[in-house]
C-alpha cells in the first residue's frame, strides 16, 4: 500500500548523551498515547550530545504538537528541540532488505534497483540482500515493489533530516 506523502512531522531533539534520556523522551510520548512512527538516535559532532529524530504521524488526536514540544523542552536533558518543516528540509532513510530472488528474476530486480540508486549487498542461492538510501516515500514505493518478490527480512532506519540550505 502506498503511504501518503508529506503527512508527517519531524521533531529534531538535541539531548545530553546519557543513560535514561531516551526513556524520558519516549516516555513523554507514551504517557500521552502518541505513537512514534520512527526514531533515530546517534551522537552528534559533539560526543556529549545526541540528536534524536522523531517521525510522528501528523494526526495527533486531541494532542497539540506545540504542547508536546514545550513539554519535551522542559525535560532537563533536552538541550534543544524543534519541528522540521518537511518542505524546508532534506531527509533520507536507509533500508536494508533481503528478498526472495531466483536466478531468473535477478536481472529485472537489479534493473529496478539501479533506477532508484540502490545497492546489492549480498547474494545467496535463492535470495538477495539490497540497500537503498532515499526519501521515505521512495523507499515506501520500492518496498511495495519488492513485496511482489517476497520479502524475507527488512529493516528501515526511519527518517533522518537536516534543514535545507
Amino acid at each position: 500500500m502506498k503511504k501518503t506523502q508529506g503527512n508527517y512531522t519531524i521533531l529534531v531533539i538535541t539531548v545530553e548523551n546519557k543513560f535514561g534520556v531516551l526513556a524520558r523522551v519516549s516516555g513523554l510520548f507514551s504517557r500521552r498515547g502518541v505513537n512514534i512512527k520512527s526514531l533515530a538516535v546517534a551522537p552528534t559532532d559533539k560526543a556529549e550530545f545526541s540528536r534524536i529524530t522523531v517521525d510522528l504521524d501528523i494526526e495527533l488526536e486531541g494532542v497539540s504538537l506545540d504542547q508536546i514540544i514545550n513539554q519535551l523542552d522542559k525535560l532537563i536533558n533536552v538541550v534543544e528541540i524543534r519541528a522540521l518543516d518537511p518542505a524546508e528540509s532534506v531527509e533520507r532513510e536507509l533500508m536494508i532488505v533481503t528478498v526472495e530472488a531466483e536466478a531468473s528474476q535477478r536481472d529485472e530486480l537489479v534493473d529496478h534497483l539501479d533506477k532508484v540508486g540502490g545497492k546489492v549487498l549480498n547474494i545467496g542461492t535463492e535470495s538477495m540482500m539490497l540497500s537503498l538510501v532515499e526519501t521515505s516515500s521512495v523507499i515506501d514505493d520500492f518496498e511495495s515493489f519488492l513485496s511482489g518478490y517476497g520479502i524475507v527480512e527488512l529493516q528501515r532506519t526511519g527518517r533522518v533530516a537536516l534543514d535545507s540550505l
Partner: protein
Amino acid sequence: MTSENIDGGKALIRSLEKEGVEVMFGLPGGAILPVYDPIIDSTIRHILVRHEQGAGHMAQGYAQATGKPGVAMVTSGPAATNIVTPLCDAYLDSIPLVVITGQVPLAAIGTDAFQECDTTGITMGVTKHNFLVKDAQDIPRIVKEAFHIATTGRPGPVLIDLPKDIVDPNSPRSELDWVDDPEMDLPGYKPEKDIDFSGIEKAVELIQTSERPVFYIGGGILKARAAEALRELVEITGIHVVTTLMARGAFPDSHELCLGMPGMHGNYTAVTSMQKSDLLVALGARFDDRVTGKVDGFAPDAKIIHVDIDPAEIGKVRKPDVAINGDCRLVIEAMVDLLRQQDATQTDRSEWKSTISGWQERFPLTYEDSEPGSRLKPQYVLEQLRDLTPEDTIVASGVGQHQMWTSQYWSFDHPYTWINSGGLGTMGFSIPAAIGAKVGNPDRMVWAVDGDGCFQMTAQELVTSTVENIPIKVALLNNSYLGMVRQWQDMFYEERFSEVFLSDDVPNYKAWAESMGCVGIRVDSPEEVPEAIAKANEIEDRSVVIDFRTAPEERVYPMVPAGKDNSSIVVPPSQESQER
C-alpha cells in the same frame, strides 16, 4: 587546593549542609544505612517519621510554609514506593523537594535484588528530574544540581537514587575527592526567561480598556514571592481578585477587592465574576479543570492574559490573547512600572463593581445553624477556629469536604499560611504537612484541619510530633463518612450511598490521640466549641486533637457539577430563589 578523600555517604551529608539544609525528614533501612551514619555528626536535624509518605508530606509542608526546599531521605524498594505519592503531589503543586532514596549496589541493579525497585523509572513521570548516581565522585555536583533544579524556574520535586556501594565506606567505589564548589553540568536547563516587554505593553493596554476584568491568581504568585507586587498591581488598577485553592493567602481575603476562591466549590461571586468577565488576567494559574468547569463554556466573553514561568502551561487549556512567559513577580513589577508611567484614566467600571457587590449581597457563603441536640455544623466550627486563633496561624488541610470548607470559611490574610494538596488531592496530607510547617515555623501556631477518612490514613505521624516535640493542633471534622464522596452520591447517584460510611464510634479518636502522646478532646455541642479551641490554643508542649462531631448530611455549597460549565453553579437551597 589540597584534595580531601571522603566517602560518598559523608559527601552526601556535607553537600546537603552546603545547600543550607537545616532539617530533613526520613526513615532508614538497608540500602541507605551508610548515609545515616554521618547524620549523627551533622548539623542537620533529622526527623524520624512513622511512614515514608509522612516524610514526603512533611517536607512539602516545610517547603510551602518556608519557601525553602523540603528534604526527605528514605531507603530503597518499599520506602521508595511509599514516597511516590508525595513526589506526585509536589509535582502537581510545584513544590520544591529533594528526595534521596537508597538503592541496591550497582552490580545488583536489574537482578531483582532484595528491596530493589526501579525508582528512577517509577518516579520519572512524577518528578521534575531524577538522578541515578553511578559514581561517588558525582555526588557533590548532583546534589547541587538537584537543589538548583528543584528551586528555580517552576519549582518541583527532584529525586536522587543512591546505590549503596557508592555511599558505603567499606566499598572502594565510595571513595571520592571532595569538591567544595562543583560546577553544574545542565546544558539543557535554562530556567531564566527574558521577559517580553511588548507583551507587557499589550497586557497593560488590555487591562486599561477592559470593562469587566478579573485577576485570576494561582499558586505561581506564591512560588514567585510576588504577593506584595500583586497587591500594588491590584491597588493601582482597582481590579477584583480571585485566589485559587493553591493561591489562598496570596492576596488578603480581608481586602475589599478580594472575591475569594473560584472553582467547583468556589463562592458564587468568584465563580460568576470570572464567568462574566471580559478580561481574565491569569497570573501563575494553570486553568485547572476544577477552576474552569467545562472548558468550552468557561468565561466565554473573556480575553485572556496568561503570565507563567512555564511555557508549557501557556495555551495548554485556553489560548491566551496575550502570553507572557516569565517570573510572575518580575512581570507584575514591570506592569506596575508601566501603569505608573502611563497614568492613564481608567475605564469606568462602576457598573461592573455594582454587579459584583450585588452578587456578594445575594449569594454569600451560608449554612443553616444546627438543631439543638444534633451534630455540629462544620462551617460553624471553622468560623470559631478562624476567629479564635492568631491571625498568622498556618492551616494545613486534608482532602474532602473539610478542605473546601476550610478554604471557604477561613480568612487568609497572609501568604504561606494555607497548605493543602490541590493538584493531586491526597487524603492524609494534612497531619504530616502541618508537622513540616511547624518545624519550619516553631513560633507560629499550626492547625491541621482534617477529615475522619484522612486522619486514618496518616494519623500515626502524631507519634512523630510527640517524640520529636513538634506540637501541632488537629481539628478533626468527624462526620463519620468519606464525606465528599458521600456528597457526590447524594447529589448525582440518587442518594445511593456506596462504601462511604466509616463508623460512628470507632476509632475512639480521643483515646487514639492520647495513646499517641497528644491531648484528645471530643466536642459534641456548639457551646463546647470555643472552649475546646481555647484549651487547645493554650497547650504548647504537645499536640492536641479535637474530635468535632459534625453533621454527615451537610453539603459543600456552592457546587459546579463535574463536566458542567460554571454558569450551572448550584447554590444552597436558601438562595435558589435569588435573582441570578
